[in-house]
């Protein structure tokens, strides 16, 4: 039972990341490597705003309110996305390279913001543990506190995203990924739409970095490594496994994808005949099995699986 709670906690927090990557990768068709930098960026901003006791920080965060701090993480991520967007659209640099440029720069920026490669926040108020949460949650539900809060944030993000995708701006975003010419014929600047998509995607990624950091209790500069791969795996697993479930929105599939990813990792950890160092191989095999299963028998490989 506790193992499931652990999987759901981690899966839900990383689902926010997956939603951000879903925007850039699936909707915008943009392989955005910025996320390896914007994910720890959210965590770094959170670390700084939580631990810095200066007057200015106290004022802008309403005396270190963790929920307000999340908003700043969101803003920081959107700036990272904006930078990648401008590099790509205005300077005509290829998508992968623009992401790499921002990600590389963010490594140093994150270290500067956080002040150190590792910042623990065990004794600070977080969105999961503060006096308000202490009073809301009865003793019996305390065990499920993290998962409840993470689920609320994830579902909230998903619903806002779903609503946004139905607006005119959201339609344009989807159009840019599928058919740029169409956007141009509508007399819209497809470049600006792309930048907007990157801003939204990275803002969400940064938010998830902030939330994960508050849950794990410390910032670590290396926490960004592999973010893109992890998020992408969740997106692909989710959209593939639930491909035929038409009643389900893609954003919902992505959330389930993240939970499946974490479940597979947890299973890999526990398969007892392997050495600890085999875990990644077992994880890889589990992914393959999941994807093959979800493909069914009929079709051969699709190029963009």
């Amino acid at each position: 039972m506790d193992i499931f709670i652990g999987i759901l906690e981690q899966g839900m927090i990383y689902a926010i990341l997956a939603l951000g990557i879903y925007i850039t990768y699936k909707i915008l068709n943009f392989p955005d490597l910025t996320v390896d930098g914007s994910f720890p960026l959210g965590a770094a901003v959170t670390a700084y705003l939580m631990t810095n006791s200066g007057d200015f920080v106290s004022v802008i965060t309403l005396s270190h309110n963790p929920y307000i701090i999340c908003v700043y993480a969101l803003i920081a991520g959107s700036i990272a996305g904006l930078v990648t967007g401008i590099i790509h659209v205005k300077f005509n640099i290829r998508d992968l390279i623009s992401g790499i440029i921002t990600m590389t720069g963010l490594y140093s920026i994150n270290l500067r913001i956080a002040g150190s490669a590792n910042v623990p926040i065990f004794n600070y108020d977080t969105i999961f543990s503060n006096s308000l949460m202490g009073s809301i949650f009865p003793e019996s539900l305390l065990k499920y506190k993290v998962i409840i809060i993470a689920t609320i944030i994830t579902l909230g993000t998903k619903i806002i995203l779903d609503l946004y995708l139905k607006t005119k701006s959201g339609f344009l975003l989807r159009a840019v990924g599928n058919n740029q010419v169409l956007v141009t014929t509508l007399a819209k600047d497809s470049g600006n739409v792309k930048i907007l998509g990157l801003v939204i995607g990275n803002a969400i990624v940064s938010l998830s970095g902030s939330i994960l950091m508050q849950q794990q209790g410390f910032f670590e500069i290396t926490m960004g490594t592999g973010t893109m791969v992890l998020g992408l795996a969740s997106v692909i697993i989710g959209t593939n496994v639930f491909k035929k479930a038409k009643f389900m929105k893609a954003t919902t599939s992505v959330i389930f994808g993240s939970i499946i990813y974490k479940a597979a990792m947890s299973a890999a950890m526990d398969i007892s005949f392997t050495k600890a160092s085999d875990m990644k191989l077992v994880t890889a095999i589990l992914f393959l099995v999941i994807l093959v299963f979800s493909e069914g028998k009929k079709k051969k490989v699709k190029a963009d699986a």
Partner: protein
Amino acid sequence: MKKIIGLVLILAIGLFTGCGTDTQATDAEVEQFTIGITQFGEHGSLDNCREGFIAGLAEEGFVEGENLTIIYENAQFDNGISNQIAQNFVSKKLDLIGAIATPVAQSSFNAAKAKDIPVVFTAVTDPVAAMLTEGNVTGTSDKLPVEAQLKLIRAMLPEAKNIGILYTTSEVNSLSTIEEYKTLAGNYGFEIVDMGVSATADVPLAVDRILPQIDAMTNLTDNTVVGSLPVILEKANAKAIPIFGSEIEQVKLGCIASEGIEYVELGKQTGRMAAQILRGEKEADDIPYEIIEQSSLYINTSVMEEFGLTLAEEYLDRAMDVAK
């Protein structure tokens, strides 16, 4: 339908293998204990810590396979995995978690807080900065004996002025050790020249830049830099600049000497602390973290010969030669 079956299968594996461990610790006369060991990554020093930790527990009567079950997980240097391991351990309601290196110690402590499972860490350089000093947590620090190392370098190289240190900007332990070097260097007439790298790929470039500015170099326990030691040694030897290590493995590879700590010993000390907690003699909260007071001196006589260096009288009886 098939995919749903597949999904259930995956989840089921996680569930069943997870429950399996709980049942083992029942039908024996002696009290059975189950502990988890989480290690940040595959690494010589960290492996030695783990080996020592298990040996230390055995010395105190907690023998793996007899009255002790050990679940070992390795986070592959991945922050997300280290979190998941911690949660996995906590959900199994283990008697104790042994954590090797700072990030896994922090994730374990954070996850174990709610369930009040004691965490015993090792290979954490600065437990105070890592906030691992209060709560149900204790362990050992692998803080380098910086002063002893400076004394050794001065004894071997009376003329040297600038000491170079390479470090990785992402390793918080390296930064705190460099600060200590800088504070103490003046007492021995040294100046520290430090240069940061962000990845293994940067090391060769950084070595080329730092070598012209220094008379000798000393290593920290920085994973990235130590991992690239062969390339550093090759370039430094070509310029006849001696390199001092920080533990035995580096001296074996070709560093001149090191006043360092012995990770197996450190692990044993940690294992003994864990035993006290398992026996219920003490709470982790009541045991302050420990460091190794006496540094171990290792020398490589064949490298010393190459550089024409000798060891001062006062060191001779303590030095252990690791040259092949």
